[in-house]
Every structure is written in C-alpha cells, then in structure tokens.
C-alpha cells in the first residue's frame, strides 16, 4: 500500500469519523428518561473506534453526489446499531475487554448490559426516521428496508456462529466461514453502508447488487485480519484481550485450517480443548493452540486468504464505483482494501 493511499484512508476516516461522532452525541444526550441508561449507552462510543462503517456510508454517498449532511443520519444509525451489537456480542462471547477497557457486562452486569444494547438498537431508529423528513419518505423507507435486511442477515450470521460453538462444530470448511461472516460481519460493516450511501447519492437509481460483492470481499478480508490481529497483533493497540478468540473457541479461518491440517494426535487434543467451556480453558492451552497454528501454517494461510480477498475487493471496486468521478471519497473507498491488510 502506498503511503499516499494510507494517508487518504487515515485522513478520511478521521474526518468522517469526527463528523459522525459529533452527530451521534446529538442522539445520546437527552434530558428525559433515566440518565444512567444514556450514560451507559454512550460508554462504548466514548471509548473511540474508527467509525469505519459510518465513514463507508458517508463516502459512498459522496461518491454518488450526495452531501455529507444527507448521509450523516444513516451513518450515525449504523454506529449506534454497531455499538449495540458490540455490547451484546461481548456478552455472547463472554469477552472481558472492549476498546482497551473492561466490557460493559463485566462492569455493570449482564441484565444492565443487555438493556443498554437494546437501547442502542432502539436509538438507531431515530436517525433512520429523520431520514424521512431529510431525504423524503420514499428514500427514508428504502433505507429502513435495507436496515431490516442488514439486521436480519447480521443476527442470522451470529446465530450460525453461536450454533457452531454450541455444537462444537469441527468439520467446518473455509466456505462455511465465508458464508457466516458474509452474514454476520460483511452485511453491516461494509455491504450495508455502501448500499445505503448509494441509495442516498443516486436517489435509489442504481443496481445495488454490485456493492454486495465489493462489500463482501472487503468485509471478509477485514474480519480475517481482525481475527489475525487477535492472535498475533500488537496487544497495546488491539483493544481486546489477546487470543481472546481462542479462549472463546471462536471458529476462525485459522482454526478451521488447523482442524484440517493437524495430525491425529494433535487433532484429538484440539477437539477436547474445544469441547471445554470458556472458563475451563487455560492460557497454557490457548498458547498451545496458537503454537500448533503457527506450526501448521494456519496463520500464514489466513493471511494469504486475506490477501486474495483484498485483491478481489480491489477488482470489485471498479464494478461498484467505477462510474463515479474522482474525489477524496472515491479514493478512500479504492484504498480501503489495501488498508485492511495494513491496519494494526
């Protein structure tokens, strides 16, 4: 990735992110209702985050000629929903850290955290409804339809992953992984923001399927890289507990690769470790899994898959955005696939 590309991504993420965050606070401050609820709802957004999803939405809209103001509500709705998902994900995964600090349910208990996650999801409706007056009823309704579709895909994807853990699935294939993250991650991280941005920019006059491919390859590479960072990333910058995914028994591409590559003896031990509850798995056991992953090339394999998907995303960028004029927004979207591999 060229330095110039990296700078484009960094500067646009910063600019769009700041705009989205400032606008997001408008929906989190209220003088009515239990103040504690809104204080906790602001907890995860306050801890930072790249605002990648909001930035994608704003950039896609700008690419197709819309102003930032026209897409800001949709971007903020997504960020609110995303933070709600994070709160619930942390409970489901029994995670201990989020953005460098203890998870919400560890600090305040599961019942409160569940309700905070619900509140963030409900709060995301406000900016979506505001779209109806800002963009007109027709576009507002279209974006709501897209949101319903995205939310349904996301919960279905999460359901798949939870089911794998519940049943201790060990015969998964890379295709299964990609199908799961298409639903769980890609739809709300990369596909939906591009589609909604394009709807706003073109007034719903563009075929939206082209963003599914671009969004899928970009989101899949993003998730694989995220999973890699969890195992081998810079612990200071990552924000979640290192190797937390192994503790949770999360079926990542690396684990799926290992399950296919490990010889019989190692496979037996691996299966027995995966059968344990999270609380029963020790750091030493997690360390052993990571060692055999490295030994059998599972980390390298996932890196190469991510590279391949980034290449495909770069190719699909042309199909998705090739007919838009040059702009900072377009350059940002074009440089994103490479940035996914370089981020830490």
């Amino acid at each position, binding site marked *: 990735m060229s330095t110039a590309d990296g700078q484009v991504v960094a500067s646009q993420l910063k600019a769009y992110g700041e705009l989205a965050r400032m606008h997001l606070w408008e929906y989190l401050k209220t003088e009515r209702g239990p103040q504690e609820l809104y204080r906790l709802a602001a907890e995860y957004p306050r801890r930072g985050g790249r605002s990648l999803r909001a930035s994608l939405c704003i950039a896609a809209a700008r690419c197709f000629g819309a102003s930032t103001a026209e897409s800001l509500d949709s971007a903020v709705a997504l960020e609110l929903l995303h933070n709600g998902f994070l709160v619930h994900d942390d409970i489901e995964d029994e995670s201990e850290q989020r953005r460098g600090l203890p998870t919400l349910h560890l600090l305040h208990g599961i019942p409160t955290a569940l309700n905070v996650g619900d509140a963030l999801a409900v709060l995301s409706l406000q900016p979506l409804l505001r779209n109806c007056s800002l963009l007109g*009823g027709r576009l507002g309704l279209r974006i709501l339809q897209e949101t319903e579709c995205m939310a349904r895909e996301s919960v279905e994807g999460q359901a798949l992953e939870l089911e794998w853990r519940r049943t201790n699935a060990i015969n998964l294939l890379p*295709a299964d992984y990609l199908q799961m993250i298409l639903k769980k991650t890609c739809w709300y991280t990369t596909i939906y923001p591009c589609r909604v941005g394009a709807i706003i920019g073109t007034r719903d006059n563009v075929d939206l399927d082209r963003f599914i491919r671009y969004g899928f390859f970009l989101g899949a590479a993003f998730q694989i890289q995220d999973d890699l960072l969890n195992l081998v990333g810079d612990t200071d910058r990552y924000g979640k507990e290192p190797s937390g995914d192994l503790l949770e028994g999360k079926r990542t*591409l690396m684990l799926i690769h290992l399950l296919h590559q490990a010889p019989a003896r190692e496979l037996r031990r691996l299966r027995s470790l995966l059968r344990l509850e999270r609380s029963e798995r020790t750091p030493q056991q997690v360390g052993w899994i990571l060692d055999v992953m490295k030994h059998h090339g599972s980390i390298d*394999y996932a890196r*190469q898959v991510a590279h391949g998907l980034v290449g495909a995303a770069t190719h699909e960028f042309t199909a998705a955005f090739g007919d838009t004029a040059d702009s900072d927004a377009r350059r940002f979207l074009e440089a994103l696939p490479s940035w996914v591999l370089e981020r830490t």
Partner: protein
Amino acid sequence: MTASERAKKPRLKRTKPIRSWSGVFEPPPEGASVAGSPASGPATNGAKAVPEAVQLGYTVIQDYLNEARQEAQRIGGTPRDTRASAGPERLTQRLFQYTSDLTNLWLEVLQASTQRDTRREPPRGTAGPFVNGYHAEPAPSPTPAAPQGAPVVSLQSPSVSLKLCTSRRVEATIELRPAPIVGPLVAHELRAADPDAPRVQGIELEYRSTENRVHVSIRIPSDLPEGVYSGLFLDRSDNLPRGTLTVTVLPQD
C-alpha cells in the same frame, strides 16, 4: 400442482467453471473436493491459497445471490430482485412512493417560486444592458467557487480606483453597470459631442478579480479643449459594455 409436487432440476453442486491449475492433470471426481469449490478444505499449498481463496469467495457470493433471487422469486419479486416485495406491500409502497414524490415536487415548486428573481432579465445589446426593475444593485450573494483555471466572477459591484494624470481641472465619472466582469476590459476613446473635437486616448483599464476592483488610468492632454468627453468600456469576454467613463474638462481659471 403445487411447487412441491412438480418436477424440478437437481440442485447443482457447482454452477461455474473452475479456472485454476488444480484440475488440469487430474480432473476431480464430481462432488468430491474440488479445489476452490465450496466443498473443498483449505489449501495445503501456500501458493494455491490466494487464487483458491478468490475463487471460493466468488463461489460463496454467487451462491448467496442466487439464493436471494430464488427467495425473492418465491415470495413474488422478480428473479433478479434481491429485495423481497410481496403484492400488497409492494402496492402500498408504490402508493407511498408516488405520494411522497408528488409532495416533494410540490415543495420544490413552492421553493423555486419564492426564490425566483422577479426582475426581468435586462435586455442586452450594444447600448445596454439597461437596468429596469426594482433596484439597480443585484442582491448580494456569495461568490460561487470557480472551477480550477476558470476566471473568478464576482456578483458584487466592483470598486473603482481612478488614476488621473492631468494638469487641467477635470471631473471624472465612472458608471458601472450591474453585470459581472470577467475581463479583460478595454476602453473606447473618450469623445466630445463635436465629432471634430480631439479625443482622449490611451485609457488603461484593468479589472483585478482578487480585489473585485477596476483600476482606471486616464491621461488628459494639457491642451484638451474644455468640454465633456465620454466613452464606453467593454468586457472582452462578451464584448458587451460594462460602463461609461466621462471626463469633464473644466474651464481654466
């Protein structure tokens, strides 16, 4: 006959060709692991991982799109419509859409009519443009951003700087017309009413867009007879007048 009763094509394991080297020397048995197909395990060879990942990705996303289309078709959408839209819901949506569009259009018409400039476009010609309407000054508006390389056009009346070189007593008047200046400007000779009277020549005019200011420099010969001398100055961009220069040479004391 219901959908479940009638004959259907078998569900295919693969609907796309394989574009990799893996099947060249040993075609895989059908249904078994095909490199890069959904049924295959991860690549054992590092060099194969990248192309197989791409192929796998395309297979996964294409299968997903196909299923979405079939689902849309099943509940009444067109085969390529990935948005589910059943009959009554679709009609309601269309009704909402047209009503919303009509409302938006009406609002746009209202907005346009309240912002419309009710002054007529002044007629243009070699003697014009003439100002008619309610007042001579155009409403102040921000200078629009010009494309790179294009001249900056201000909509506000420019200021004037006058440099007069003369030993005579003169009064100079510059009248500017309410039209944007692009430039360059050129001044005609100043003439008196008497066609045989000498003319004031060599008037220098410059419009500086960054200042929105017209700089005028006139040299009056010391032997110029008293009287009123006037002439137009034009904008070369459209060769239309932008104003009048008048110099009155006063009697010598």
